[in-house]
Structures are given as structure tokens and as C-alpha cells.
């Protein structure tokens, strides 16, 4: 898809947004789920993300891929969501000491349930690791993750290695 020109009319923006949602909607939903545990909060966050993308469209000039642009905005809204919350998120280190759920035969029955367990484990990662992991799980490469988050590729690699160790412990 060609990058839209700045100052696009609202109708074109809406069309572009529809295409973005079709291409990245489920991934944006999963990203929101990594920032918000509660279903209502999650839906609100997805809405905020989509509105932020809609608003940011005039600034998109194709310097990066559409996917990078969209996920950068989504992560930024996720951070803003965490900042507005009253209860701070617990870090993985704290959570690991409190509880580390072992393998549960019932939960392992279906892929969706495994997905739930994976999501729960991702929630317990510190934010920096969580961001790298969710982008990796969506199929982003090191360079693209570095571009979204504003960190170096070697930093992405280091965070991912540590995050995977933590995930193995948590799962």
C-alpha cells in the first residue's frame, strides 16, 4: 500500500484506517491485551490506539513501513494507558517470587488456552522485555523492533534473550 499524502480528507483517512484494521487489527488487539488485563480496559485501549492512528495519519510520510508506524503509535498509547493507571504494574521479578504457575494439563488442551497462559506470562514481564517479546511474537525482526522502540538492535537481542528465559520460567 502506498503511503497516504498529508492532509488527506476524512473519508480517505477512514478508508485507510479500515485497511489498517483489516491488516493489523488482531495484532493490535493482542498488543492491547499485553498492556491491559481487564477486558473493558483492553477494549478502551484498542479504541484509543485506533483513534491515535487515525489522528496521526497526516504525519505519516512513508519514512518507515506502515506496520512500524502503526505499532509505534500502539505502543505509545499502551505506555500512556499504563501511566494513567492508579495501580503500578508488578515487575516479573516480584511476580516470580510470588507465584510461578506450573504446567496445568487442562490449560494445555487447546491452543487458545495456551495462548492465554502465554499472555499471562507476557503480562508478568517488565515493560521493556514485554514490548520486545510482543513484537517478536507478531513476527517483527530486530531492526524493525529497534525502529519502533528507539533502541539499538543489540539491545533488542539482549532484552529478547532475557525475556525468553523469564518466559520459560513462567510457563
Amino acid at each position: 500500500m502506498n503511503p497516504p499524502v498529508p492532509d488527506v480528507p476524512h473519508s480517505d483517512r477512514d478508508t485507510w484506517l479500515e485497511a489498517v484494521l483489516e491488516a493489523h487489527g488482531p495484532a493490535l488487539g493482542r498488543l492491547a491485551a499485553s498492556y491491559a488485563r481487564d477486558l473493558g480496559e483492553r477494549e478502551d485501549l484498542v479504541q484509543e490506539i485506533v483513534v491515535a492512528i487515525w489522528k496521526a495519519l497526516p504525519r505519516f510520510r512513508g519514512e518507515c513501513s506502515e506496520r512500524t508506524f502503526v505499532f509505534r503509535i500502539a505502543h505509545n498509547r499502551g505506555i500512556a494507558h499504563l501511566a494513567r493507571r492508579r495501580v503500578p504494574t508488578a515487575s516479573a521479578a516480584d511476580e516470580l517470587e510470588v507465584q510461578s504457575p506450573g504446567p496445568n494439563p487442562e490449560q494445555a488442551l487447546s491452543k487458545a488456552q495456551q495462548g492465554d497462559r502465554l499472555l499471562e506470562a507476557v503480562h508478568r514481564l517488565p515493560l521493556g522485555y514485554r514490548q520486545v517479546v510482543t513484537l517478536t511474537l507478531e513476527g517483527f525482526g530486530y531492526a524493525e523492533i529497534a525502529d519502533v522502540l528507539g533502541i539499538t538492535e543489540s539491545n533488542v537481542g539482549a532484552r529478547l534473550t532475557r525475556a525468553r528465559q523469564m518466559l520459560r520460567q513462567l510457563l
Partner: protein
Amino acid sequence: MEPDTELERWQGEWRAQDMIPTSLARRVERETRRMRWGVAAEIMVTVAMGGGTLGWAILSRRPDVAILAAGVWIIIAVAWTISMLLRRGAWQPAAATTAAFMEISILRCERGLRAIAAQALLFVPILGFDLVWLYFYRDETDVWTFLTRPAVLLIAWVGTAVAAAWAVWYRRRLRCELENLLRLRRELEGR
């Protein structure tokens, strides 16, 4: 190169989750419409306050109304100057990355806290000017009687109390948000 089976398995499990809410399109449409109305309302308030008093001064040709219009425009100018100073450098992130967004969010929170202090300081001369102008415009003879009129009581004193309560609540919210952002930045930096 060997395939990373663990990562592939996790990716499969992760992508099996479909979490996009069905009513999203409608909600987004409603939100964007609300945003457009918000911008229109801001413009209308500025036009109504500034333009209204100016128009009144021109049509009435009365010096007291001219003083009111001048006062309103001075206040608008001061408010805009403060607003521009506080927004300087906080319009958009230095780079289009999540790390830069974090920095600008922290800056906006700090500026927001300063803005509340500035608004509180600006509120005192605005209220003072309005009351003094109204006192002379209405040819009042007794200050106490004027200050205890129901309309003045409601607008000036109840309005002040409501504005103060809002400022306290908003300041608390911003401080909480700033603390969260600083904590998240530490978490992102691995400290």
C-alpha cells in the same frame, strides 16, 4: 540455520488469540466525531469571548465596555503566551520512537503541573478584573452587598470553589501519571 521451534510455537499460540472488539468501528467513529466537536467548541469560546466583547465595545461606543474588551484581550494574550511557552518543545517527540514518546510524555506532565499553577495565578487577576468591572458597570454603591448578590455568589465564589477542586484533582492525577511514567522509564531502561 536451525529453526527456532520454541519461538515458532509461542508465535502460533500468540496469534491464535483474536481480541479485536466487534463494536470498534462504531466507537472510533463516535470518538472522532467528539474530537471534531471539541476543536469547534474551543474556537467558538475564543470567538464568543474575544469577539463578543470587542463587538459590544464597537457597537455601544461606551468607554467602560471598551475597558472590558481591552481587559479580555489582554487576558487572552497573556493566556496564549503562557500556553505557547508551556507547549514549546512539547508538541511532538524528538524522534518517532517509543523511547522518545516516553520522554515527551514526562515533559508534558511536568508542563501540565506548571500550567495548573499558572492558571491558578491567572485566575486571581481575571476574577478581580471581572468583579471590579461589574461593580462599576452596575453602579453598585456597597461592596459587601455586591459581593453577596446571588449571581456573584454563584459565579464567583461557587465557580472558584469548583475550579479549585478541579485543579486539585487534576494536579493529583498528573502527579500520579508523572510518577508512573518515571517508574516505567526506569523499567524500560532496566533499572
